[in-house]
Every structure is written in C-alpha cells, then in structure tokens.
C-alpha cells in the first residue's frame, strides 16, 4: 500500500489507496453477513431510522451454500428463478461475443456487465413493465427483460443503418423507449438527478409508475448524486436510487469516491430509507427492489439502495484493469459470482442441473451468433451501410433550422 492515509499532524493531507495493487495479494475482509441478520420492515410504515441496520449491514437471501432463507426471501417460483438465470446467462454470453467482436475490430468499443448481471436482470424483473428505467452503461441487461431484440441491440453497437439512434452514440449507449428504458449518456451521474424529475412527473400525473436509476460508486462523487438525494428527500417522488458499489471507477478505487466505508447510510440523514444489498444475490436484489416499489406505489417517496458488488471485467474495451489491480482480484470477492450462486440454488432445490445449464449456454450462444449474423446483414463496422450523413443534421431540433440546413447542403449529402 502506497497511500498516505494520515492527514493533519503528520503533515499534509490523506491520499487513500486501493487495498491491493498489481503484484500484491488480493484481499477483502470476509463477510459475516447472513440471510437471517435483518428483518424486513413494513415498507408502508418504515422510516429512515428503521433502516439504520439495513444500511449498515447487508441484505442477503442466498447463503454461501446456495440456500435461501430469511425475511427478505421473495419466495419466487422455480419458473421465475430459471427465467432470471436464463436472462443473466443471455447477458453474459452476449457480452462475451460482443467483446470478441470488439477485439477483432467488428465493434469500435464495448462495455461488459461481467459480475454485475444480477442487478439489471433481477431489479427489472421485480418492477412493473411500465416503470421507468434510467440506467448507466452497466445495466443494458434491463432490455432483455423488457423484450428488446438482440439484433436491434447489436445494430446499435455496430452503428449500422438500422441503429435506432442512427450512429450518433458510442456502442452500449442504448435507447429503448418501448421498454421505458431511457437513453444512456456518457457523462456519469447525470441520470441520477434527472430520474427524480421523471418520477415527479409520474406522480404529478397521478400514475402508478416508479422510476429506478443507478449510479456507480465513482460517479456518486458527482454533484448529480447529491442533487438527486436531496431533491428526492424534499419532493418525495416514486424513485428508487441505486448506488452500484462495484469497487472500481476505471482505476479509481471506491476509497476515492467517499472517505466513508458505506454508501447506503449517506441518505439516512436526508430521511430516506436506505438499504444495502448483496449485489450478486439475485433473490435479495429482487426483494429489495419490490420493497422499494411498494413504497413508491404507496406515495412514500424514494428508497436509497447500495448494491455491493464487484466489477469483474475491465471498465471497457479500452481499459486494462491488470494495470491497477490484481488480475485475479474478482476471485476473492466475498459475494462470489451471481450466475453461479443462482444456478447452485436452483440445483440445490432440484429445479436445475449442470446438463440443463450447459444446454442453455449452448442455446444462448447460438442465439447470439444468429443475432450477430442477422445484424450485419444491415451493415458492419468496416463496410456499412451506415446511417446516411443527413442524420448528422436531423433531430438536433424538432425541425431543421435554416443554419443547419445550409450546413447540410454544404456537405452535399
């Protein structure tokens, strides 16, 4: 450890460091949290104070052996669980293939959800279909749950003529209005405070509609995070504010995002009930999201959730995480792997088998390959066809103003 964590009298200020750097042994404090630790308060009467333990501790349903228990167990059917497992596997296999495409020059850029698949899949499954999703680039999995075609997603990542955002945004910056999935933008954190406004509008219109949004531990240092929590505290709209603490923001360890150890408790002084959940536990994620949704539906305002997880992959295809953290650090994460944990749970229940799992993976890989093959019939990165150049000039405004029309004519396309 090279950081100088002493401030004040020892001279200068404190500069934190990550727990381990390349060449050092990975280390995380072992978890002592169990599914029996925490009661489930009544979402309709619960105050912020009532969640003090839930924000300090960790809500889990699956233990390390794959057994589900405790008051937070959502008691989902085997069908629901196997659908959740399938969607998580779909996302991982999709990511694997797309990353290979990026490595072979068929995509300009890519970002995986590796290790965090449970978040988008489980939380979206726990919500109503008309609830708004306001994601970062690490929750594309929501779209599978909402029924978006994989071909359409790949068309966007290639930026071909069928890309619904017309080749204007980098890969993984999806827009899917039919699925109430609001468009991703690159500036981190902006969506968090915007989501509060989306939820205020739903409440103003008297609709039973919640908005869920996510932000990373790194981006929670942005003003937008603090605006969101404060405005949500004041206006009490039906919003679910999730901080995905995956330990890393590119190379910036979460120790730089906050001087405290805990992100969940930050919203308690704002009077917002706050939970901390095992982000690799599909069942616990489902349960806390459902609980927050009940509070939203009852007009009780926001819920703040820290999702404790680990970013297993690099930040993006442009990043090499082994330059700043031990390459095997993810193997030491106390929360394990979300897919393995749900799979083991289903097998333990007698609802799944290794053979079924292999078949599923095979089927999903074929599905992804077929989708990619279909997508490139609409254009690939090297040869197009891409959206026409005229799309540079359209939808800047509702109507093309004269000065942009002149510039389009100057380009001559």
């Amino acid at each position: 450890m090279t950081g100088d964590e002493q401030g004040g009298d020892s001279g200068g200020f404190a500069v934190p460091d990550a727990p381990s750097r390349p060449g050092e042994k990975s280390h995380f404090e072992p978890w002592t949290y169990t599914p029996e630790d925490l009661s489930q308060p009544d979402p309709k009467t619960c105050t912020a104070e009532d969640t003090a333990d839930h924000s300090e501790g960790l809500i889990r349903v699956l233990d390390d052996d794959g057994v589900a228990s405790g008051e937070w167990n959502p008691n989902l059917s085997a069908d629901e669980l196997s659908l959740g497992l399938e969607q998580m596997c779909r996302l991982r296999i999709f990511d694997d293939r797309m990353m290979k495409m990026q490595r072979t020059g068929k995509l300009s850029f890519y970002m995986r959800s590796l290790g965090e698949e449970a978040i988008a899949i489980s939380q979206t499954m726990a919500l109503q279909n008309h609830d708004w999703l306001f994601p970062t680039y690490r929750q594309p999995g929501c779209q599978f749950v909402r029924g978006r075609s994989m071909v359409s997603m790949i068309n966007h990542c290639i930026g071909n003529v069928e890309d619904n955002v017309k080749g204007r945004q980098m890969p993984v910056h999806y827009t899917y209005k039919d699925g109430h999935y609001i468009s991703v933008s690159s500036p981190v954190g902006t969506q968090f405070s915007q989501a509060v406004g989306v939820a205020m509008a739903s409440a103003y219109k008297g609709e039973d509609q919640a908005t869920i949004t996510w932000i990373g531990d790194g981006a929670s240092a942005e003003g937008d995070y603090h605006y969101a929590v404060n405005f949500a505290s004041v206006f009490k709209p039906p919003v679910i504010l999730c901080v995905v603490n995956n330990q890393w923001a590119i190379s910036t360890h979460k120790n730089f995002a906050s001087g405290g150890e805990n992100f969940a408790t930050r919203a308690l002084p704002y009077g917002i009930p706050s939970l901390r959940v095992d982000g690799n536990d599909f069942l616990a994620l489902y349960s806390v999201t459902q609980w927050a949704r009940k509070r939203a539906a009852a007009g009780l305002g926001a819920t703040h959730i820290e999702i404790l997880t680990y970013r297993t992959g690099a930040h993006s295809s442009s990043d090499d995480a082994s330059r700043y953290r031990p390459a095997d650090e993810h193997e030491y994460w106390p929360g394990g792997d979300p897919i393995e944990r749900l799979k083991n749970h289903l097998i333990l229940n007698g609802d799944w088998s290794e053979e079924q799992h292999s078949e599923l993976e095979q089927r999903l890989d074929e599905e992804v390959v077929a989708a990619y093959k279909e997508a490139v019939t609409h254009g690939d990165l090297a040869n197009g066809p891409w959206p026409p150049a005229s799309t540079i000039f359209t939808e800047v405004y509702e109507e093309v103003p004269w000065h942009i029309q002149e510039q389009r004519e100057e380009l001559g396309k």
Partner: protein
Amino acid sequence: MTEMNMIQSLNSALDNLLESDPNVLIFGEDVGYFGGVFRVTDGLQEKHGSKRVFDTPLAEGGIAAIAFGMGLNGLRPVMEIQFADYIFPAYDQIVNEMAKLRHRSGGEFSTPVTIRTPAGGGIKGGHHHSQSPESQFTHTPGIKVVYCSNPYNAKGLLISAIECNDPVVFFEPKRCYRGPFYGDPHNVPTWKGHEYSEVPEEHYSIPLGEANLTMEGDKCTVIAWGAMVHVAEQGIKDSGISCDLIDLQSLVPWDRDAVVNSVKKTGRCVIVHEAPKTSGFGAEMSASVQERCFYHLESPIERVTGWDTPFPHSTEWDYLPSPQRIAEAIKRTQED
C-alpha cells in the same frame, strides 16, 4: 390591450399557459410562495397551486436535472435560474443533456424545457448579478436562445419558448423589467406610454427566429438584443444618422433575412451587446454579415460590446456600451 411592464407581461404569459396547459409547471429558487426576487411569478402559486408553481432547493444543477426528467416524461417545465450568473452549476445538464437528448436518442426522447433567467447589467450587481452569458449557449447545438427586450416581445417570445418542443434558454434583461434603459443611469423612465408596453391580456406568440426592425433608416444597420436595443436606439438618435435598428430577439436561430436584407440596403453594420467582446455572439454576427454581405459592405463592421473583463460594480456605466460609444461607431462606418 393593457399597459404592462416586463415583469407583468412575463407573469401574464406564465399565467396564460398555466391556465391552458396542465402540463406546464414552474419552479426555481424563491419563485413559489414569494413570487420571485424580481416578482415575475408573483401570485401564480396562490392562483394555480403549489403543485404547479413551487420553490426548489438552492441547486441549479438539480433544478435543471429535474426539469430534464419532467420534460421527457410528458410535462412542459419552466424553470427559473434566479440570475444568469448562477446558471453554470446547471451547464452540464443543459449542454450535455437537454441539448443532446433528442439527437442522442434517435428522436425517441425529447425534453421541452424552458429556462428563464434574468441577465445583464445596470443594477449595480457587480461580477455575479450582471453577466450576459448568451454566447455560452449559442455555441451549443440543440438549444434555442432567446433574448427579449420589452414587455410586448417578452410575453410573445416566452409563450413561444414554452410551447416549443426544444429546450430554450430565455434571457430577460433585468435592467428593463420596469422600464427601458437608454444608457443614462440618471434617466430612469418606466414603461408607461412606451409603444411596446401595450400588451394583450390573452395568449399570443412571436415566432422564435424572427427579429424586430424597431427603427428604419438607410445609412447603417445596428443589430442589438436585450437592454442594448434601447441603448442603441439612443446612440442612433445621438449620431443623427439614419439607421435600421434590428432587435434580434432570437439568437439561435437568428433572423438571416432581416439582417442580410438590411445590411445589403445600408452597406454598413454596427453590432451591440453588453457581454464581453471576445467570442461574444457579435463575433458570429460579424462573421455572418461578412460572409453574406461582403460585396455590399462600404466600411468595416463595428462591434460595441462590454469589455473583456469581469463585470464591475461601481464603474458599470464605463463597462456597458454607452449611447456615445455606439454613436461614434455608427459615425466611423460612414467615413470613406
């Protein structure tokens, strides 16, 4: 028609739209119970309720963010930034978010936010209650930029801004809220009796993108916006030279035909704004006039602007373009 000052006409515009469109919401710092530090939203909360007109936390970035979210979810938010000097915490939300949403989402989403903000000097506001940051928004594709100058165009333009489906930054020259400003701090007229203080009570609109030719002449074209329209009027009178005075009103998009036709007629051009000179919107005007009217120009284009310095407190009359500076510039354009 009713005689109104600019505060009353802006209030009337907001009142009309709160009445006619349930999706219009008004919010910002001190705009609710109190009715705004300049009184523009006075009485609106009492009349339309605190769900329609309300105060917010003092966080411009948060105000802009919730406006963005409301706009994409079907509402028509009208947010106030209390002074344009305080818009910068919201700059990311305006420039990277509002301005790009329609384009970045392939047209699936848009957010029709109107950002009202008092701007400009002349009230002894020093560095941070006097700036006129229009060019920091005209350089951003995806937002429209409007600058009203009198009670009549304030109401008509604000209604158009709110009804526009694109985000609009709407600058209000605070020096002109209660009367036109002719550049002489010792002469403080009200709007009473001014031709543009006759304002319909009912809904009307002035299209965005259209300028207003407020004086007609044939020797020089003077282009101005905001409070400087009135200072330019005085400067033209003092010069004794026959000029077109174009109140630009909309900066993005601006009225190409009004400007080009006038300069082709007069062959001379003076551009006036109170913001600093370097990279001010006057630079865009000057370049555009040169590109479009070069062979009609009889003399170099002049710019009369604020200085490239922070806005001062007690010496602000030496900072703001004066009728004298404008008259001198007009005279220079007449030299051979």
